């Protein structure tokens, strides 16, 4: 295996950057998932332990973190459906670029709606 490849196969543009985004969001979601199963497991330790630790999610900084996490999940979900279309739909490869713009459009719409609802709940009152 050469350690220094001559030239590169990475072509940039929509195809490569969506792949990079898919990898980064995937890793972020995976590590959150490990933590999330562990924090939920505290219900098996005691009601107070769970409620105390879950309380750590309920502050303004975490509300932004949750919004970022959901942004990663929604991108990974929509781009994942695009990858499936590229693989299984006859014209998928031809329209992969247009589909990425559709993914980003839907992502923005979803995230605006989610952010308004979640941030007004998380930051408002209580």
């Amino acid at each position: 295996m050469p350690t220094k490849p001559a030239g590169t196969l990475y072509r940039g543009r929509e195809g490569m950057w969506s792949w990079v985004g898919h990898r980064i969001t995937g890793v972020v979601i995976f590590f959150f998932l490990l933590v999330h199963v562990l924090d939920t497991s505290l219900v098996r330790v005691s009601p107070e332990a769970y409620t105390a630790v879950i309380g750590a999610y309920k502050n303004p900084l975490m509300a932004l973190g949750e919004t970022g996490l959901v942004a990663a999940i929604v991108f990974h979900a929509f781009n994942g459906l695009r990858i499936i279309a590229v693989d299984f739909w006859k014209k998928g490869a031809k329209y992969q670029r247009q589909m990425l713009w559709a993914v980003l459009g839907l992502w923005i719409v979803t995230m605006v709606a989610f952010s308004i609802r979640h941030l007004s709940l998380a930051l408002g009152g209580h």
Partner: protein
Amino acid sequence: MTATQIPSPRSKDTSGKIAPEYRRTGSSRGNFEMLAWLFMRLSGVVLVVLIFGHLFVNLLVGEGIHAIDFGFVAGKWADPFWQFWDLAMLWLAMLHGTNGVRTIINDYAEKDSTRFWLKMVLYAATAVIIILGTLVIFTFNPCPVVDGVQLPGGFCPA
């Protein structure tokens, strides 16, 4: 007139010889990588539904995140529907994520021993999380009692 019998390429012929079998990889791995590729797509579609549903019910309905406490979890897991929803989400998400990270390790760790040990750590973490999560879902007790005393905050019948 007798027609000449030509056996189809990958069949075992009757002459006692075995016809050459077409193998793409030439290794003993079989079609594991193809099945992993297919699993990513199938589990991905199911996970979109499971996780969007999870986020909607837990964060966007009613009081949202403020409603989440021990009683909230107890209320959900009193219903087998949510137990199996969460179980399916746990298993599919962990296997999907593990296979994704496995791919990334294979891509970027060049030394054989580094690749091997990173994957061993990954698989160990995956096994612990899947087993722990499964046990928690099925052994959950909404009204925990220690030495005959109910723990505070529990969800106990009056």
